[in-house]
């Protein structure tokens, strides 16, 4: 059974068919890339996978369970986490708190226990801090734990967003253009980070990316999207040598 199985997914915004007959299969442990020209519908696919948009037709199955059209929060609890193209951090809170919000559903104490500072508040908060710091240290962000998230430099904000997503203990991690706006050095560091989190967190990754160096460097399989439809699917080297892909996306 595949970890993620998407069949004939489609969505219309009024008269516009943004995505049509999109199918995708991702096996556990894979690093899968979703590429395509601007406006092809890549982020729309992500928004459907995470329940931000409700698909007009088609099904999404995670580990065999149907998650089509469920609430975003429930889809996260089922095991899908994501990052955003335009970074969406909790800017007014510290780096540590951002990750602790990601841990929210894995640690439990009631509002009453929190308000009156009962013993379980202290023990749970301590455990949460330790867990959050251990996730941050993977990204080398533990030294910035008390910094406000909005005060971090751009590259670190992207890493924090990944750290926050990983804190929810996902089976599938969706990265929306993780290398956008990064220089070649930062992109190389990002590739190392992605390799590291695959090993540390044993998570399957689906990513959208325009940086061909990154895509050809780390993705094992690719799906090319053009005008909302799948143009080509398969192993990275095959896809990137497909003449149609070269024509539509990479330029003749």
């Amino acid at each position, binding site marked *: 059974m595949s970890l993620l199985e998407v069949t004939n997914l489609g969505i219309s915004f009024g008269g516009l068919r943004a995505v049509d007959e999109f199918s995708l299969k991702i096996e556990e442990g894979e690093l899968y890339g979703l590429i395509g020209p601007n406006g092809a519908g890549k982020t729309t696919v992500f928004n459907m996978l995470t329940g931000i948009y409700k698909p007009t037709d088609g099904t999404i199955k995670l580990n065999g369970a149907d998650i089509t059209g469920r609430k975003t929060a429930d889809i996260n609890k089922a095991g899908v986490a994501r990052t955003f193209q335009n970074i969406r951090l909790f800017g007014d809170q510290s780096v540590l708190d951002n990750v602790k919000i990601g841990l929210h559903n894995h640690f439990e104490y009631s509002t009453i226990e*929190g*308000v009156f500072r009962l013993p379980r508040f202290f023990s749970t908060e301590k455990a*949460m801090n330790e867990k959050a710091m251990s996730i941050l240290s993977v990204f080398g962000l533990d030294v910035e734990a008390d910094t406000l998230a909005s005060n971090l430099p751009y590259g670190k904000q992207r890493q924090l967003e990944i750290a926050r997503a990983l804190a929810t203990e996902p089976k599938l991690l969706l990265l929306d253009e993780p290398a956008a706006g990064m220089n070649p050095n930062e992109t190389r560091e990002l590739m190392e980070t992605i390799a590291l989190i695959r090993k540390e967190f044993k998570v399957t990754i689906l990513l959208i990316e325009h940086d061909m160096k990154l895509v050809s460097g780390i993705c094992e399989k690719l799906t090319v999207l053009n005008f909302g439809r799948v143009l080509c699917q398969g192993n990275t080297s095959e896809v990137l040598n497909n003449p149609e892909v070269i024509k539509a996306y990479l330029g003749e």
Partner: protein
Amino acid sequence: MKLLKNVTAPTQKLIRTVAAVVLVYILMEILIAAGCISSLIQGLLVPVCTYSIAAVALNLCVGYLGELSLGHAGFMCLGAFASAYFSKLTADTIPDVPRFILALIIGTAVAALFGFLIAIPVLRLKGDYLAIVTLAFGEIIKNVMNVIYVGKDSVGLHFSMKDQLSLGMSVDGKMIINGAQGITGTPRQSTFTVGVVLLILALIITSNFVNSRTGRAVKAIRDNRIAAETVGLPVSKYKLIAFTLSAAIAGVAGVLYSHSLNSLTATTNNFGYNMSIMILVYVVLGGIGNFSGGIIATTVLLLLPELLRGMADYRMLIYSIVLIALMIFNWSPDVQKWKAVNGLTLDGIKARFSKNKEVQ
């Protein structure tokens, strides 16, 4: 300060705020005992506590939930009437202290219940629309309070929303809530001490709330709703909790208010949108999300008209000028820049002090 090292930064801030409130309280008590405080100012001590609590409540809603509510005077109204009703009803049967505690619990619970019920439809809205609807709910609460008639006689309780006569009470009956005339003869138990204790309680509860797991979730929803959903937070649930708590604390302010007066009526000035906006002014001036700032702003703005009494006709004019000046000083981007350049922000001043320490 060594003692404070083991606790987290928000707790340190809370301890400092509570200590300042206690200090001011002790100072005021000494000055009152020494006879240095005019009776006019003494009469303002309970209102200062009342509206400080209201400001704390609204700050939770505006600063942490991130939703502008213009109906908090309505929740105060509910707390005031529910508790005054209970106190009046049981004035002869329950001793003072337990009765006030019970009244406090009832007032808070009623405000919380209505806060919860109103929040269900209201929190589906955003921004201006939410503000308008909360304003409307506040007005509705106030106006409904003006037409409620409740009386008690040997038979039992009578209720009407028409007039006093339609209650049909026997001759031994006595009015408890008399429509627009409200409730008269509520036992007056809101002393300065009670006010300060309740203010400190409100401060501790809200501060602990926003710095707990639930509070973090509420702040996350405020900062970025979509991101909060994608990390698995049930958005509606946490918005409901925060709004209900905010309404409950406004209810506490209402209990304090109703027990400081002989006659309680619901008018535009005390429970209408005028008051809702006044509370918002305290919050904005004190700094959105800053509980201690709200208390300071409340105190200054309540005392100012009395201190300006010597100016006779011009006092409200000067009051509004001071208000505008403070607003500009706190919020204008140009002034912020000027303060930052000259190191007059809180961080800048701290940095200056630490630099001096290094030199020594």
